């Protein structure tokens, strides 16, 4: 499924987000990068309708996100927050089961089928053995994977991840990005992710969006758009791009 953004605006105190036109294609991983305060998270929160969006600015396969019911939207688009902070320590499986909420009427409980879907999602992130563990007993890297598994249980075609690799060690960072890439390539999902690590973004993304001060500065395939002038414009410091082993490395 593809996502179309058209004349999206959102204002909050002194900050204004303004995206004129963007398209995210299915089976692609797109990373959204930019300095702190560029509006990446605000943009994701508009996409997921956590923040109110105006009619006619966001479309999934031609359907307006702004007028969808919550459950309809959740079946098309799943959001993976940076962190989860409930006070109740649910087991990992119970936690992932919550991804089925959009398919269940208010007065019902998950069926055997829902439990199977949750377990499958957990197996997909290779944490199947932790099903009965309490969520907060896991390491922060494992928790991120469980959050992704919950989004997978939503069975949506679009996955939106808000800085899924922040505060993670290089091993877990790689693991998460490999997984995101796999979801786009093998499961044909439209994957949107905000990232701070530019090298990783260049390595894993099919497309990149550079944002600054609430606006999109450049978007496209990394090979087509990435150059030193763009980096300086976005980040306001000099960076060099060094090709090595068929890849581009960014040195500050």
């Amino acid at each position, binding site marked *: 499924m593809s996502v179309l953004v058209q004349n999206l605006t959102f204002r909050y105190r002194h900050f204004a987000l303004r995206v004129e036109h963007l398209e995210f294609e299915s089976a692609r991983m797109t990373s959204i990068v930019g300095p702190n305060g560029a509006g990446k998270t605000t943009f994701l929160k508009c996409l997921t309708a956590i923040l109110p969006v105006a009619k006619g600015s966001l479309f999934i396969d031609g359907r307006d996100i702004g007028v969808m019911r919550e459950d309809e939207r959740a079946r098309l688009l799943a959001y993976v*927050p940076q962190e989860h902070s409930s006070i109740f320590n649910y*087991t990992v499986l119970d936690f992932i089961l919550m991804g089925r*909420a959009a398919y269940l009427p208010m007065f019902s*409980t998950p069926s055997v089928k829902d439990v199977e879907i949750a377990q499958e999602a957990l197996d997909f992130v290779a944490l199947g053995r932790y099903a009965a563990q309490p969520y907060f007993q896991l390491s922060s890297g494992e928790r991120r994977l469980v959050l992704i598994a919950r989004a997978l249980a939503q069975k949506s075609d679009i996955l939106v991840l808000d800085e899924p690799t922040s505060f993670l060690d290089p091993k877990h960072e790689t693991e998460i990005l490999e997984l995101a890439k796999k979801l786009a390539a093998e499961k044909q999902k439209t994957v949107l992710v905000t990232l701070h690590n530019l090298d990783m973004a260049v390595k894993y993304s099919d497309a990149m969006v550079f944002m600054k001060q609430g606006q999109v500065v450049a978007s496209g395939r990394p090979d087509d758009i990435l150059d030193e002038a763009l980096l300086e414009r976005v980040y306001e410091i000099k960076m060099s791009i060094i090709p090595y082993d068929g890849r581009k490395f960014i040195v500050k």
Partner: protein
Amino acid sequence: MNGRMNNRRRQGLGVLIYFLPLLVFLLSLLIGTVRIPVKDLLKTLASPLFPSLKQSLPANALIIIFSVRIPRLLLGLAVGASLSVSGASLQALFKNPLVNEFILGISSGAAFGASLSLVFLGRSFPPQISAFVFAIAAMVIVLAIGRKSDSPTIALLLTGVIVSAFFSALLSLIEFFASPYALQALFYWLMGNLWRASWGDLAVSLPLMAAGILILILMRWRMNVLSMTDEEAKTLGINIRKEKLLVILMTAGITAAATAVAGIIGWVGLIIPHLVRMMVGVDNRKVIPMSAALGASFLMIADNITRSIASFEVPVGIFTSLIGIPFFIVLLKRSKKVWL
């Protein structure tokens, strides 16, 4: 939590908890100032079906069982279940294991509403209506003050203090205007009591409590999702405004129905859900129905104790406070970011 029980023992315990209310109910029928032996109790219970049994019964056995003990136990059962289910539901809704209808001041709102009705509209007008209106009013104040804050736990507890104080002040005002006769009844009822149980009171409150409890039990799994942050619940596909409103109406409804007949019985809604979580974990699919069963049993037992401990009856609300407050202090000290 350390020393978690293994699954089989947990399951056994679960089954036991669901049968406990029936067991306690039947055994409690034997307790009271007039001693009725098991044989006579069974005969009395069977007498509506076999009228010939009535002749061999001791004097007053029928009245004691059917007009005194059964309504009182039914009230204890329903109020205990109501307060526990509303406590567990509010804890999920506010994402805070330290709140319940009593701590948030909703019971005080309901008590004020019921008193207002009893003093100014008389005993014949059902106090549940006014109790419900003011329970909702209390809930609205809690939501308005405690909504946006950096430390929601403390903010919510403080909001509860404020709301309770506000309605206590209004209640004092009513007591000031009430006749000495009404005042005495009000005073005893406010302490939390099951003695007023009559079929007339039950006829209004019992169906309300049963319906509210049933709806909240039906929402038991949804309560897990509602206990996530609002952002998460929303992106998981929940219409949080609609579903929260339903939980609020139901908890206020059963709190009002319970308070209108039994006065303020505090702390049950805090103690019971915690005990259940310690036994079976935090999944509301178990916590909510089990809180109903354990809360029902707890209040019937507490009432048995308070009416047989001395030659006079101690209000059961005093008893639950004496147990609940030390319990709350322990919880508050243990209070941390993650629960269980």
